[in-house]
């Protein structure tokens, strides 16, 4: 296990990168805590695979250094780095028994037999694979095979970090739940550094203590699931996390205060100093936090969708369209309502970044 640090790291697949657009991964500094459970979340093409390959050593960064517990590993190969990786599709040896599959990485490293047996037994117990130990891996179901793949990563006592690359893609939806739970238990038990790459917010938020959100080669936010939801650091996070995503309204600075222009009833934001040099100001509020109240800014109701347990109201405030999420039993007038923007959850974004 190790603390993985990335110093001034950047990567480009172009030989002589000039513009920021040439970089698949823009320059950044980051430390993956020893024993942390991280998720790396972002849409396809955001640079998360590049990030993963930099950690595992499949790709050497074009700029910057990587250290594991202060040892520089920038130039080392994946094998030398002692990284375990679990891929989308289970990688196991069909002709071997489950026990041999689990023991394989240890025997390769010439560990004494007794220790191998003990480790295999521990990991099998943890993953509930014990009844299968004597069976050949061929013919097992996809989720069992994927468990064995995970087990092969977990079995090594010296592994610096375990990387998961969308490991639940091939698993049946109703079994995903069990594997997610298993993974969390495994993390509590063994305390490995785990990095879980996915484009699925559900998996990322469920698995991780901290989520690293990537967008367009930038790390746009690192935070707990709760922080991502309640205080997105970037408009992309507001859009990407949560369904439907955050409402965004263009704002202006007027007389030293930030306002959203609405004829008759401007929405003013209290308590934040507007930055002087921002090109674009936006006000963000999640549909969950936008309150429909008895007083406040008057808005027209455009549509209400009944989604069973809750309703989504699309409302018009001046020329701006917003979505509010309502409890199913919340009464609502037919055409007009009043909106309130709770201060705690109304965020200001300058050039897409959160103004603290």
């Amino acid at each position, binding site marked *: 296990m190790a603390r993985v640090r990335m110093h001034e790291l950047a990567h480009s697949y172009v030989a002589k990168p000039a513009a920021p657009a040439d970089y698949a991964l823009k320059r950044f500094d980051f430390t993956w805590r020893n024993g942390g459970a991280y998720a790396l979340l972002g849409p396809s093409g955001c640079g998360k695979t590049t990030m993963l390959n930099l950690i595992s050593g499949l790709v050497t960064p074009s700029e910057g250094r990587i250290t594991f517990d202060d040892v520089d590993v920038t130039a080392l190969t994946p094998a030398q780095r002692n990284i375990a990786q679990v891929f989308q599709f289970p990688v196991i040896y069909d002709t071997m028994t489950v026990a041999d599959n689990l023991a394989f990485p240890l025997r390769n490293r010439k560990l004494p037999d007794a220790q191998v047996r003990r480790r295999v037994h521990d990991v099998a117990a943890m993953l509930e694979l014990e009844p299968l130990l004597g069976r050949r891996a061929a013919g097992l179901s996809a989720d069992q095979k994927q468990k064995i793949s995970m087990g092969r990563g977990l079995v090594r006592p010296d592994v610096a970090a375990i990387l998961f690359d969308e490991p639940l893609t091939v698993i049946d939806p109703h079994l995903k739940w069990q594997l*997610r739970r298993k993974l969390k238990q495994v993390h509590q038990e063994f305390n490995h550094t785990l990095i879980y790459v996915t484009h*699925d917010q559900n998996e990322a938020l*469920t698995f991780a203590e901290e989520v690293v959100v990537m967008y367009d080669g930038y790390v746009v936010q690192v935070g*707990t699931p709760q922080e991502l*939801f309640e205080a997105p650091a970037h408009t992309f996070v507001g859009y990407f996390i949560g369904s439907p*995503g955050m409402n965004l309204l263009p704002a202006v600075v007027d007389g030293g205060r930030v306002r959203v222009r609405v004829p008759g009833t401007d929405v003013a934001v209290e308590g934040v100093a507007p930055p002087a040099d921002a090109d674009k100001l936006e006000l963000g509020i999640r549909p*969950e936090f936008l309150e429909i109240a008895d007083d406040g800014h008057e808005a027209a109701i455009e549509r209400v969708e009944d989604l069973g347990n809750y309703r989504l109201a699309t409302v018009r405030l001046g020329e701006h369209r917003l979505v509010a999420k309502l409890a199913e039993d919340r*009464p609502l007038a037919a055409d007009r309502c009043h909106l309130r923007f709770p201060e705690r959850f109304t965020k200001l974004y300058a050039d897409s970044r959160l103004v603290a």
Partner: protein
Amino acid sequence: MRLALDDVTRRIGDEVHIHPTDLALEPGLNVLLGPTTAGKTSLMRLMAGLDRPTTGRVLEDGVDVTGRAVRTRSVAMVYQQFINYPSFTVYENIASPLRLAGFDADTIDAKVRGTAGTLRIDGLLDRLPAQLSGGQQQRCAIARALVKQADLLLLDEPLVNLDYKLREELRAELRAIFAARDAVVVYATTEPLEALIMGGNVVVLDEGRVLQSGPTVEVYRRPASMRVAQVFSDPPMNLLSGRIDDGRVRLGRDVGFDATGHLAELAAGDYTFGVRAAHLSLARNNGHEVAVPAAVELAEISGSETFVHAEHDDTRLVVQEEGVHLHDMGRTIELFLDPARLFAFAADTGGLAAAPTPPGG
């Protein structure tokens, strides 16, 4: 047009894909809801005429079209895979059904550009499908299905292979497009939420049988059986077996309360009680609620909601919480259950015995 399935079945060898089914579909949106392998695709293929029913008839406006070549029928279909002609440009893909129908070049051009505009791929008309993203490819396939103005439009989980944000976007667009159509639109999905968002009518399917059909929200509020309630809930409805005796409801070993409201009229006996995850809570909201002790197994977080999986009396219960919250595994908590939100199903048949009154009605 009206589409009717008259006692159709579909068997392949010994395997029954569709049990005897009668179904009448009106113009408008019809959602086929069911888990994977429920028979949604099989049923759609029968409707389209791509497969021939083993027995029974398919009727269009009362006219038997069973076994008629699909080429001569007014049907369009969108698959879950992105199916386009790889060697044609987007323009030619969309134009292809029109060319075959013998429209003149100007009409074709106008229709292709119009439909492409609706689906916002009008800037991509010269590309080949392979040069498009997944979302754009599916937009192209949908445009080709829309352009011929077919009387029967079938969509087989069209959004399932897209990222969820794209799904959200396209879903809203599709709903608007369908609303402007006069065709029988059949839209298959496995997701209850998607069915609710699309609205219209729903046909709940499971293991090759139609379980229930009707207006979507109505079916959601009054599922005819336990199975419908499970299929039409995400996460599946929580089920607890219990009894009613002397005006008291007993759930499992140690939860009991007075049978009031909709439960009061139930005869004494065994029932299975159901409650949706959203109607369990971790904090008391009113005085009628009953506390159920449970141990947290996992908190699943979906971005705007937290689903707490907990175990009570060897039964797994799921609680839906608004917002994102963290819960430690193994902790003991109390879940609050509002008796007014309970569904009751007959213990033997699984049929609905009592449903809660929907809010406001």
